[in-house]
């Protein structure tokens, strides 16, 4: 059975009637499971026809991105100017073909710690908007992802949007991979400087069971220098910042890389991100 509702409320209604329907957007995670014989779908809820989910809007300093907007549309244009770190992360997702189909909703639904865009959502303290049978609920992204490939989405719910603030300060992303394209991240990070709040936020991917905000390091940095201006950040601070971020990471060793290298790599890229912030 394929359901193709045209509105969010219709989609939620489908799940009331058919709670086991598989929510399908770009299919770049789900179809891999089907092709490998790990999932055999019986009923599908396709979000393709819901225009609202494929659009983004901006209001009062907040940007709202529909959960089914393909990554390719985050790489350039007005959205990329507002969220340059997201544009940078989007550019590293899979391949051009994957970026034409992959979505934030999909990455959040899968909740892999290696999800390329997720460090950006964490660093920007994104809010996940979820449609439920009783209306809408909002969850901070850090409360949404609870473990590797586990999240707090309940049955009958659909992720409809991600809300992110427009920040005036530097924001940057970095992802380590062995190949120059189409590569699962070995370590990734997003750093955001908010001069108004005098804070730097840094989130690390693939170096823990979920995305890690290096909050202790953030606090150390705020105490160490006046973050109302990035020019106050010295090279020595950047190096120490990277080292501390590494200390907060909890990487594992697997067939892709070692815990030791992941910790080292995330230290290097967080340090470099702060250097870029200082130079901006």
């Amino acid at each position, binding site marked *: 059975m394929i359901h193709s509702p045209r509105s969010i409320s219709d989609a939620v209604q489908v799940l009331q009637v058919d709670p086991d329907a598989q929510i399908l957007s770009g299919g770049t995670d789900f179809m891999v499971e089907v092709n*490998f014989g790990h999932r055999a779908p019986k009923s599908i809820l396709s979000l393709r026809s819901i225009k609202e989910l494929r659009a983004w809007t901006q209001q009062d300093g907040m940007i709202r991105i529909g959960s089914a907007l393909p990554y390719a549309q985050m790489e350039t244009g007005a959205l990329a100017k507002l969220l340059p770190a997201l544009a940078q992360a989007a550019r590293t997702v899979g*391949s051009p073909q994957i970026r034409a*189909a992959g979505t934030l909703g999909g990455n959040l639904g899968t909740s892999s710690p290696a999800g390329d865009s997720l460090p950006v959502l964490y660093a920007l303290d994104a809010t996940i908007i979820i449609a439920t049978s009783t209306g809408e609920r909002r969850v901070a992204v850090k409360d949404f992802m609870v473990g590797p490939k586990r999240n707090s989405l309940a049955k009958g719910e659909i992720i409809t949007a991600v809300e992110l603030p427009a920040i005036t300060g530097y924001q940057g992303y970095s992802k380590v991979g062995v190949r*120059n394209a*189409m590569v699962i991240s070995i370590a990734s990070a997003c750093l955001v400087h908010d001069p108004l709040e005098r804070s730097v936020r840094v989130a690390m991917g693939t170096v823990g069971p979920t995305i890690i905000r290096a909050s202790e390091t953030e606090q150390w940095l705020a105490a160490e220098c006046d973050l109302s201006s990035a020019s106050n950040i010295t090279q020595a601070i950047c190096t120490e910042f990277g080292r501390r971020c590494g200390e907060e990471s909890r990487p594992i060793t697997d067939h892709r890389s070692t815990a030791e290298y992941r910790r080292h790599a995330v230290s290097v890229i967080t340090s470099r991100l702060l250097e870029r912030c200082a130079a901006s």
Partner: protein
Amino acid sequence: MSLENQSYTLSVNNKSHEVQDAWIGESLLYVLRERLGMPGAKGACEQGECGSCTVLLDGEAVCSCLVLAAAATEADIRTVESIGDGQTLSDVQQAFIESGAVQCGFCTPGLIVAVENLLTHNPQPTEMQVKEALSGNICRCTGYGRIFDAVSVAVARRTGASQ
């Protein structure tokens, strides 16, 4: 057959195609190849990591192995079979042949679609834009050098022709 039955219609290369009694989990790649008589798109990885199955979905190049066919009923699907009218060769196809960009040919259909798509969106891409646009299409035989040459040849011809 004991598998769940789906019947639906797909728009492929500007024509309507009926699909009868198909298993719900079939990818668009499978349906094109095994049900609709369009084996041009190839499967080499089942997970969107090689681009051999590239087709256009509403004007964007995607991996058809990752598209659930039964959910693509409202999409405008274009395959390699629609390039060059299926009879005469397009300039991209011709350039691939002349530049030696074809060896075993398994990656070729996916690349043809990806290159045609690139030049539709960006008629005069830089060298790095070409490489990035094709970074999702793996070729194991050529090492890509002749493929880049083919794209340059096609771009030059289109630019020359339009002047």
